[in-house]
């Protein structure tokens, strides 16, 4: 396995969480600049569930003051990366490494 630092992988993980929690169709693109409310239709209940899932998956806590300022997926990624530097490090098998580009 190869360990790499890849912000895009973090975005992909967060996108997976967002899709699952907010029940979004797979064809809806989720990128760093995607707006949570305007592009994905996320409401407060979804956002609470997303934050709680992130807490569980990454073993971190995003405080409430930071949640207030979340607007795009990249904001979420920044919060996760700040609290869990290893979140952007991912052990990938060769096939996953190729897929992640």
């Amino acid at each position: 396995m190869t360990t790499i630092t890849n912000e895009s992988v973090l975005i992909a993980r967060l996108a997976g969480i967002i899709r699952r929690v907010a029940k979004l169709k797979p064809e809806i693109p989720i990128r760093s600049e995607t707006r949570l409310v305007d592009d994905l239709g996320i409401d407060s209940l979804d956002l609470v569930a997303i934050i709680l899932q992130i807490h569980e998956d990454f073993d971190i806590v995003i405080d409430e003051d930071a949640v207030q300022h979340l607007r795009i997926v990249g904001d979420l990624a920044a919060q996760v990366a700040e609290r869990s530097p290893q979140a952007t490090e991912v052990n990938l098998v060769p096939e996953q490494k190729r897929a992640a580009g």
Partner: protein
Amino acid sequence: MERRGLNFRKRFLRAVLPFIRTLPLPVAARFLSGFGRLEYRLFPRLRRSFRDAVAHGRSILDGGWDVSVVSRELAGNHILWRTRDLLLDGVSEARAREMCIVTGRDDLDAALGLGRGCIMLANHFGAHMLPAHWLLREDFPLRLYMERPRHISRFMLEHFRSDGPLSQDKLFVSRQSDASDSASSILRAARTIKSGMLLYIAGDVRWSGRLTEKARFLGQTFQFSSTWVVLAAMTQAPVVIEFCRMEPDGRYHIEFLPAFIVPKEAAIEGQGGPWVQRFIDALEDQIRRYPTCSNDYFFWRKPLVA
């Protein structure tokens, strides 16, 4: 209900309260409610409005009460309701304690004793701000999760001045909040509860949007905020319903009901309805038994259903 002369009434009450408070407080309360009963006698339109509302309520609840008597007392209690906790502002602990009859304190203590915090499920029945006032006087670790209340005592205002991430100031909500603000607010409320505090939240707030559930109340279907259900499910904190009625002798009767736990599944969209209905049923039962403390519920004629 038409709020004719509301500003005048507020200014008048603020002017006379310092003098009325020097009376024995139960007498002061009856004196204040006397203004409401006087208005009822003097203004035919107001009298008709109350009688129509009470008659409507009696038909829905199958209450055996006398419409004239209840209407008159309700008009009087409207003044006490709107006075909120101002009657106790600046009074000594001894006088405030004599003014309050409390039942169910053991149930409240047992709920807090579980060590998971507690959700105090409030409402707009009777003297609706008195339980919060009493809880603060008794040094309970209380936070209000609602819009910032106005026209309340300096005693309560002082308690709003706290610091830190779980300060009272950060917990007041706004109907103008966006998704991130609301999510932040809910997470903060959950953390407040988990820290062992008592979160005071109303269960009879008519609302729209996702965090709501429909419930049957006084013969109509309304959409109520279900935020308390989500918080209860998230935190697994015990929920204690409270009511505060105005007694005929002028005192306040605060009642805490035995706690219950909301299962985690209730946080799933659409699963919270039975819990909202359970609370609304308890509120309706309270109104049936004490219609003179029903405040403006009988005047709810147009359901706010989204």
